[in-house]
């Protein structure tokens, strides 16, 4: 656990509490449904229905059903025009605001990779195929990456300035990590942090073109893994200076205790096979938290199930940690890109609160090259005090956060 009077003399300015959280993903709407899906190790990947995948190798993804998502229309803004990503952000923020109506953020930091990409696709297709462009102004207005963040804040009367981080698949963890450092330094008392991404044809086809996605099940760390499947979602955490939260009687769900970021510069789409980038991010998170590797009780891995990612990440984990339980929850819902780090932070939060290890489903055989303690196929009860969540992205960007069970 984070030690304010650290052995290396580095000053830790403030403890950072998570006082509320909201999530929407293929695993469910809200913390309750998400907890149930995690506990039951549900496979929430299904055939893609939003666009044609007839020419793709991969034909499945983790998807949020529109019938429930779009029921969040009508938050005082023109809901029917908003992108699905805005509805996801509104859904996630509604849950935060419901838990903590007095939380007034000074800053909002959100990660994403593709904003309202499907509206950009509609616009381009209509132009290219000489179709009607009557809706073009709506598509264009709702395409920018900051729009879902502003829409969600506007829906609940929040006026904080927004920083939208687009660090590929590490974006969500970067957003939470940067927000954590903003609060820990004492420069901010309260910051909203999270991530979102909605599935789109362009991104789906892009990963398919790289042969990174699989026509089979997503099997992170499995000897027979063949690639990732995409997902979507949004998650938001309300971070607050612990002292401030306690003074106003806010509930403390958990603490963020450390953050590490690294850039490995190996290749624009592939991780350094030595695992150095992943290792540096995890080491820096441990140093930031003043936590030893043997104090970590669970790792929510990036675990995309691509051959290269899992090999590099697995190598880094096995070098740094000794038998710590590891799972990739992407096996249950796919890879939600800019949302992944935030959604998985919520999974870690639930694991800490309810003392269990989320599972890595579709796991059939260990990879002889990876010395990992995989939480295979079933949720396990466990005593968890400190958990680590990894996210790595295109461009060699790597991020890790450490969360701790709150102890007064």
């Amino acid at each position, binding site marked *: 656990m984070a030690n304010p009077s650290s052995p290396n003399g580095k000053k830790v300015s403030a403890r950072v509490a998570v006082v509320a959280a909201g999530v929407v993903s293929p695993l469910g709407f809200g913390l309750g449904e998400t907890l149930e899906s995690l506990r039951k190790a549900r496979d929430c990947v299904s055939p893609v229905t939003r666009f*044609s*995948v*007839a*020419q*793709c190798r991969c034909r499945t993804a983790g998807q949020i059903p529109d019938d429930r998502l779009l029921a969040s229309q009508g938050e005082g803004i023109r809901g029917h025009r908003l992108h699905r990503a805005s509805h996801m952000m509104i859904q996630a923020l509604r849950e935060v605001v419901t838990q903590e109506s007095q939380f007034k953020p000074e*800053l909002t930091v959100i990660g*994403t*990779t593709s*904003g309202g990409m499907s509206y950009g*696709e509609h*616009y*381009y*297709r209509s*132009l*290219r*195929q000489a179709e009607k*462009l009557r809706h*073009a102004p709506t598509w*264009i*207005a709702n395409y*920018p*990456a*900051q*729009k879902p963040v*502003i829409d969600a804040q506007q829906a609940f009367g929040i*006026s*904080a*300035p*927004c*920083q*939208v*981080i*687009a*660090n*590929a698949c590490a974006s969500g963890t970067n957003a939470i990590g*940067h927000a954590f*450092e903003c609060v820990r*330094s004492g*420069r901010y008392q309260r910051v909203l942090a999270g991530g979102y991404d909605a599935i789109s*044809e*362009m991104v789906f*086809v*892009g990963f*398919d*073109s*790289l*042969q990174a996605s699989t026509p089979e099940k997503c099997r992170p760390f499995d000897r027979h893994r063949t690639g990732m499947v995409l997902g979507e979602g949004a998650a938001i955490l309300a971070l607050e200076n612990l002292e401030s939260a306690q003074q106003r009687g806010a509930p403390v769900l958990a603490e963020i205790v450390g953050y590490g*970021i*690294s*850039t*490995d*510069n190996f290749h*624009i*789409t592939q991780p350094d096979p030595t695992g150095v980038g992943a290792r*540096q991010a995890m080491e820096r998170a441990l140093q930031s938290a003043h936590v030893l590797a043997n104090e970590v009780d669970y790792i929510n891995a990036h675990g995309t199930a691509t051959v290269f990612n899992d090999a590099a990440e697995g190598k880094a984990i096995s070098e740094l940690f000794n038998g710590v339980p590891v799972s990739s929850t992407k096996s249950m819902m796919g890879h939600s890109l800019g949302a992944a780090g935030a959604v998985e932070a919520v999974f870690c939060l639930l694991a800490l609160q309810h003392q269990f290890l989320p599972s890595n489903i579709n796991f059939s055989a260990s990879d002889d090259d990876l010395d990992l303690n995989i939480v295979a196929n079933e949720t396990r009860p466990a005593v968890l005090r400190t958990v680590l969540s990894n996210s790595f*992205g*295109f*461009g*060699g*960007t790597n991020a890790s956060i450490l969360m701790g069970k709150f102890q007064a």
Partner: protein
Amino acid sequence: MSLAIAGMGWVTPLGRGVDSVWEQLLHGDEASATAISEEFGHRPYSVFRVPESALTGLAHPRLRRASVISRFAAAAGLDALRAAGVKLDPQNAERTALIFAISNGGVIYTKRFYRDVVDAGAQSASPLLFPETVFNAPASHLAAILGVTGATYTLVGDGAVGLAAIKMAEDLMANEPLDHCLVVGTEEVDWLSCDAYWRWRLLRLTPPIEPFNEQQRGMILSEGAGAIVLARDGPFTIECAHPGGYFAKRAEAGEILKRILRDLSRSEVDLVIASANGTFVDQAEYRALKAVVSNAFVYTAKPALGESVGAAGLWQVILAAQALRSAELPPVLHADPAIALQLSLSRKPLVEARRAIVLSCGVNQQAAGLRLAIR
């Protein structure tokens, strides 16, 4: 905590190099517009492009297949580090952070990638193009060229994103044991982005940009990059990086700009580098400037250089630094002399000017500000 600007780099439609571009602006030069068209488009659009000569000598394996947005960024970033006298090596690369500000991103390769999908199906999608469509591709290339192994961030937003990136740099340097933070704003222009802004009634088909005009005739898009090296010491101090905020409706933009200006003008300011670009932004800025800092000189370079969106905030900061350093302002081009602001329509000496405000109002709901002082 105040930060200093230790070096700057500038790639614009008027060429590359801070002193060179600044001299041209002082002489009242403006970029030449180029018409760009698209095979399926009904109309050409005028844009201000970066001349090819600006990227001469820029060679690196990571840039071989990279889009121009990455090349602009690399050129500006390398120039800024050189100007600051910073040479990165494995020892100090970890203590240097890289923050990118981007709006439309790699739109040229994104369009090309998706065009193949639309025309010929998913099987025609290019695995070489896809990675270049990702927002952080330019930052990744520059990080690789420089060997940065620590924090690299790409922020996405509208014309205010450059100042948001500087604010983020300030927060980072308060937290991390960092020596430097290289902040780069970059953008490339394409017919598709022009068409999008035109359909949103923010673009005009041909120059000029008429700043602060009551008739909002629209902007002309441009491209390029701006970079600054932030350090603990340097000739310019960022006294306050204002976090800004967002406005729900265009009509509300003026109020947030007033708030930013009030916060930043608690110390006496001599000039404001505005973001007026011929759109609704101008009237919002006009009202805010008139209400809060009516005595300050006001300058906007967008009639001369165009609206570079993600790069614009960094360009404005460079303009502010140059104005304070050279103690003069270039003429504001194509402005109506009757506009009731302290606009200089000709080259204007600044006597004992010490502080400048940079005000950024984007067209997609974001606004931010910054106060800069010369030491």
